[in-house]
């Protein structure tokens, strides 16, 4: 399934990794190269993070570069902003995306606006890594997908890899640019998604989507964990003679609209899939952009298959998460419009 998009640079040495390992590898590589880089967050030091993404960093780089913090997201992001404007390169971890909200003011009113409001005098190259999404029986508070809040905030970049290869390459690229980045990691796929990843240094450029499957009848747009579900779904569609093109957005904002429009103009149909609630989710923006710019090429309105507009439930998360059957209904709506 991941063959299409896991093409490593020719000759590069590779290794099978999951997303956790890929993230860990990216951090190690960059921390070795750049002494300004440090990781910080709850349980990220000695313990190596509750998902073990920062494992070994404390041992290799010591307590001043793999920092266990107090239980305070506002403190983590607030102090990380200070570090970033002072010239360090903090990579802060928020243990679950659901817990990013105590730091919301520091992110949207401060980090996002620092470069701008200082007239360019104080860039704020802060990375916030955080696991997002459902499917792990986490209920309300270990399942949310809050990307839209940050996409709506000018000054932030929002990235969300789906595969180990992209996780490593995008994180390396993010750590080497100068704007604040919210880096959402698909926790459901942390260990489930495996692939060949170059052991050395490489970057996956930000702001570039990837066509991971070519097709002609409908464009399926996804990212993160949902890209995996959508990719499998595309296979089943193929069996029914429906040829779906699959896009993995990778960087959510600024989004690679060129690649999206090219695909949708070709297929004439689009279905966007995400876990976050539908209303004012990123799917709404994508739908609006596509309609605004490609209406005449559309055979049917762009469809959205998303989490429902309720808090994330526990026992019934299988009913809540975008399902293949709902995706199928959406594709059918575009085909039969």
């Amino acid at each position, binding site marked *: 399934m991941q063959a299409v998009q896991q093409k490593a640079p020719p000759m590069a040495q590779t290794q099978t990794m999951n997303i956790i390992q890929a993230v860990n590898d990216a951090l190690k590589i960059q921390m070795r190269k750049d002494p300004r880089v440090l990781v910080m967050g709850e349980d990220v030091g*000695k*313990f190596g993070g509750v998902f073990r993404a920062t494992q070994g960093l404390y041992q290799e780089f010591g307590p001043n570069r793999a920092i266990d913090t*107090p239980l305070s997201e*506002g403190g983590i992001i607030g102090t990380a902003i200070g570090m970033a404007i002072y010239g360090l390169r903090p990579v802060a971890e928020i*243990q679950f995306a659901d817990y990013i909200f105590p730091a919301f003011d520091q992110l949207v009113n401060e980090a996002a606006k620092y470069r701008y409001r200082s007239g360019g005098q104080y860039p704020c190259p802060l990375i916030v890594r955080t696991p997002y999404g459902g*499917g792990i029986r986490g209920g309300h508070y270990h399942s949310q997908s809050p990307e839209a809040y940050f996409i709506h905030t000018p000054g932030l970049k929002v990235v969300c890899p789906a595969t180990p290869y992209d996780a490593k390459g995008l994180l390396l690229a993010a750590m080497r640019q100068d704007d604040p980045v919210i880096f959402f990691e698909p926790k459901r796929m942390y260990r489930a998604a495996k692939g060949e990843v170059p052991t050395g240094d490489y970057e996956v450029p930000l702001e570039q989507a990837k066509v991971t499957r070519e097709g002609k009848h409908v464009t399926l747009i996804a990212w993160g964990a949902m890209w995996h579900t959508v990719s499998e779904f595309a296979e089943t569609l193929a069996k029914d003679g429906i040829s779906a093109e699959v896009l993995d957005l990778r960087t959510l904002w600024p989004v690679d609209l060129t690649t999206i429009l090219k695909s949708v103009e070709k297929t004439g149909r689009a279905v966007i899939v995400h876990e976050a609630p539908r209303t004012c989710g990123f799917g709404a923006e994508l739908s609006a952009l596509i309609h605004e710019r490609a209406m005449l090429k559309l055979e049917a309105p762009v469809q959205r298959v998303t989490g429902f507009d309720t808090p994330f439930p*526990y*026992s019934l998360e*299988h009913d809540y998460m975008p399902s293949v059957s709902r995706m199928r209904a959406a594709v059918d709506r575009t085909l039969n419009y």
Partner: protein
Amino acid sequence: MASKARKATPKTAASVAKNAAVATERDRTPLCLVNPDGSVVKGAKLPVIPDADLKRLFEVMLQNREIDERMLTVQRQGRIGFYMQSRGEEGSILGAAYATTKADWLFLCYRELASLLWRGMTLQTFANQLFGNRQDLVKGRQMPCHYTDRAIGLVSISSPVSTQIPQAAGVGWAMKLKGEENVSLCFMGEGGTAEGDFHCGMNFAAVYKANVVFVCRNNGWAISTPAEVQSASETFAMKARAYGMPGVLVDGGDIFAMIAATREAVERARKGEGPTLIEARTYRFSAHSSSDDPSVYRDEKADQAKFAHMDPLPRLRNFLKHRELWSQEWEQSVVTKIQDQLATAIKLAETMDLPQTETVFEDVYKELPWHLREEKNEALRHKQKPVHGVVNATSSAKG
């Protein structure tokens, strides 16, 4: 704290260092009335507690421990998704709960099952929540251990750490505004004191002299993070001073000390004299949760031995022995009984159906708006089969 001109002799040397926040011996010494061996500390005045209550408190401690062990096993068998133990902390939790009544609202962190057992939450209610079934009072919407039970004064438990603190202050404030003598009892972990919400809640409570008692369970750990990373202050109780609020440090292994301290705080709150912060010094004998593996970050064996004296259960047992209120048979019968009752409750909870799909859309608002009506219909058209056995061993942080 307005800038009033004060008449005192001016200080003439900055002496910042001397002004440092040094704790006094009194600050550092936890209140302790009963020694680990069950003997009364010399000079201590024990709170008045009827024998029947003492025995009942011991029973609940035993029950809590049995439940803990059993439910962890059930979790390990993949039958429930998650569990959080509270071994060794039952004493302080029960002590605080004992000093309140059901009319006093209860805000929990998440590790305070004993307070609910004390207040009479039924085992069936408990088990239904863990299995998230159709009879679960929170309709299967939250992870295990996130109970709500209005009948016993329990407010909804939330995973985000410390959000309950300003809310509890608000409830205590509302009680005061309404002229009631009820109080709001609010638990938190020592890790939770680092959140901004701790500050907001404590500050509002003190400014408005809200009817609230805060209990900080300092069990030494927040997942893998030791308490000394949470604050540079020598005790958590001392944080009360920043708010002009009394702070008391208590030996959390001593249920008598907890009862005495909480009673005094509750009384003050009932009289409208404002909030108190109690730090219960304990040890988290168990893992953080069923997702955690503490052997990665602490020396399990050494620590269990080192902190054994802080376990409230043998201490209360020893005390009861001294008072001739304990027998082996009685303890055994309590344990056997709870095992049986629990088995029955689990069986029923486990065989009960999950909530119906349409419940996903209820209670978002009081009434169902158009978009949720539509979404409900979509969900019903595309009902999914529950995914069983999805393991969440990827994280040790849930809860």
